[in-house]
């Protein structure tokens, strides 16, 4: 699903209740908020807050949500890492509390998974596509995962879930995974791309694309959230926890 930017229809009084999705990312120094319906993105904004993210998140979120109401939300999506431990926790705590109180589903999504999804959109790959994603961790460790993305079917499957491994172990995995994934032989599922992410922004280090050609993170999160929603996924708020490795 590739959402387009649209104008909200009037103020909140004119909107159907629980018709909006809210996406939050605090896992890096850049705060991302996005709000939209299944028809498109209402607002999608980023702020480079560095260490001020804990102080500024709530004033910005309160301003961002208006004139829509909290009760207009049908679901919330939050990135659960890997990322800054403290930053990720702040987003998760906020999203869990909102989802619990509003009694709406909460999608806790891996940063690596969403990077794979976003890359598929960027490269306009509609069919089944297998991508390895890695991001530097601490002390020489690397976060790594292998995902299968299918834009056409709207599916994102972890062939090898997120894990924190040594760089050596990750390279070994990449070498072996062409023949099998996580020990299972899967014909035709050799890795088609290795996506290496920046530590702080979850942006691709390789295959840089001009900013105007790649979907924004907020738009990507909203699109993914609506895909999950339309496929009937309704995760509870307590299922979303930070991923530390």
């Amino acid at each position, binding site marked *: 699903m590739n959402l387009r930017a649209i104008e909200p229809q009037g103020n909140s009084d004119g909107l159907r209740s629980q018709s909006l999705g809210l996406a939050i990312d605090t896992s890096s120094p850049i705060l991302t908020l996005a709000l939209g319906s299944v028809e498109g993105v209402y607002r999608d904004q980023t702020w480079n807050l560095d260490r001020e993210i804990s*102080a500024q998140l*709530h*004033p910005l979120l309160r301003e961002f949500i208006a004139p829509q109401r909290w009760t207009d939300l049908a679901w919330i999506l939050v990135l659960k890492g890997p990322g800054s431990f403290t930053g990720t*926790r*702040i987003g998760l705590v906020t999203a*869990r*509390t909102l989802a619990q109180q*509003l009694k709406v589903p909460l999608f806790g999504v891996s940063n690596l998974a969403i990077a794979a999804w976003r890359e598929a959109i960027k490269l306009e790959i509609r069919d089944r596509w297998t991508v390895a994603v890695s991001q530097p961790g601490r002390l020489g460790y690397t976060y790594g995962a292998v995902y299968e993305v299918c834009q056409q079917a709207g599916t994102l499957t972890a062939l090898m879930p997120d894990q924190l491994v040594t760089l050596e172990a990750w390279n070994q995995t990449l070498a072996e995974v062409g023949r099998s994934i996580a020990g299972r032989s899967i014909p035709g599922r050799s890795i088609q791309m290795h996506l290496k992410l920046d530590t702080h922004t979850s942006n691709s280090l390789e295959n840089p694309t001009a900013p105007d050609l790649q979907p924004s993170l907020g738009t990507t999160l909203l699109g993914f959230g609506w895909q999950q929603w339309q496929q009937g996924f309704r995760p509870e708020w*307590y299922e979303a*926890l930070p991923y530390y490795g």
Partner: protein
Amino acid sequence: MATVLAIETSCDETAAAVVKKHHIFSSVVSSQIAIHQPYGGVVPEVASRRHVETMNETVAEAIAQSGLGWSEIDGVAATCAPGLVGSLLVGLTTAKTLAMLYDKPLIGVHHLEGHIYASYLEQPDLAPPFLCLLVSGGHTSLIAVRDCGQYETLGQTRDDAVGEAFDKVARLLGLGYPGGPAIDRLAREGNPQAFALPEGNISLPGGGYHPYDTSFSGLKTAVLRLTESLKAEGAPLPIADIAASFQETVARSLTRRVIRCALDQGFATIVVGGGVAANGALRSHLSAAASEKGLRVIFPRMDLCTDNAAMIACAASAHLSVGHHSPLDLGVKSRLAITDVMSLYQSGHP
């Protein structure tokens, strides 16, 4: 008086409570002690992670137990200083989210002010001015309480907090964590006069000693040397006698200072706050000495001595009732003097 939902996560307890002035509607504490016990102390990152997992259930339980709805809650509070930054952030972020969602004022609370307000919950007729002896794992202070938010620090530890000294000595004696309750239990079986230990006086440049400041690192070292010398003799270590002697020295040292301070400064009432206020020897020493001098002494009940959110809610209720509230961009601080507590507030409409 305002009804407040408060959250406390300054260290290793996840707590939530609903309080109106001095009346506790609910108080829920989810303890992490068992999680940190294998490490012999609180591991900050582990504490932060656990707070995330337990916070929402704890808050939900506090609201459910209170029997109140959101329309009956006037404000949302959280401890914002001093404490472990990662832990404080989880509690404050939750409180900010609830305040934002329900359009309620946010009240950031100084943890030590919470311990002072625990005495109001114990004795609703308590009114300032009074002297507070604050003794916990992170703090040892003598505070003059003039009014809501009006404090003066008259004495404090120069090194270890008294609760920290209990933990360290308990570790020396192989008693595990937390050390305070373990030493208190064992001391009942020992002779408090068995070993003479130093009280830790603070010398002044012009001669003499500081009348109210304390030091516990010397006492801890003295216990270490004592155990080493007893071990060298080859006899079984008289752990109960050492625990009793250590506890006796601490209780005597604190009692002497707090009584002198109350008499010097003209306070008729002494309140004791913090986890070490649960210590049996301190309670008996201070009660006897205060009685002898005609002073009133108030010890909160045990569950109000250790970290809890009822005391935070009580302090927040007092602040909110006089128009104090905090901005939504309030941050957390690992350290903040209690004399700077009013820096957390602004007046007028939130």
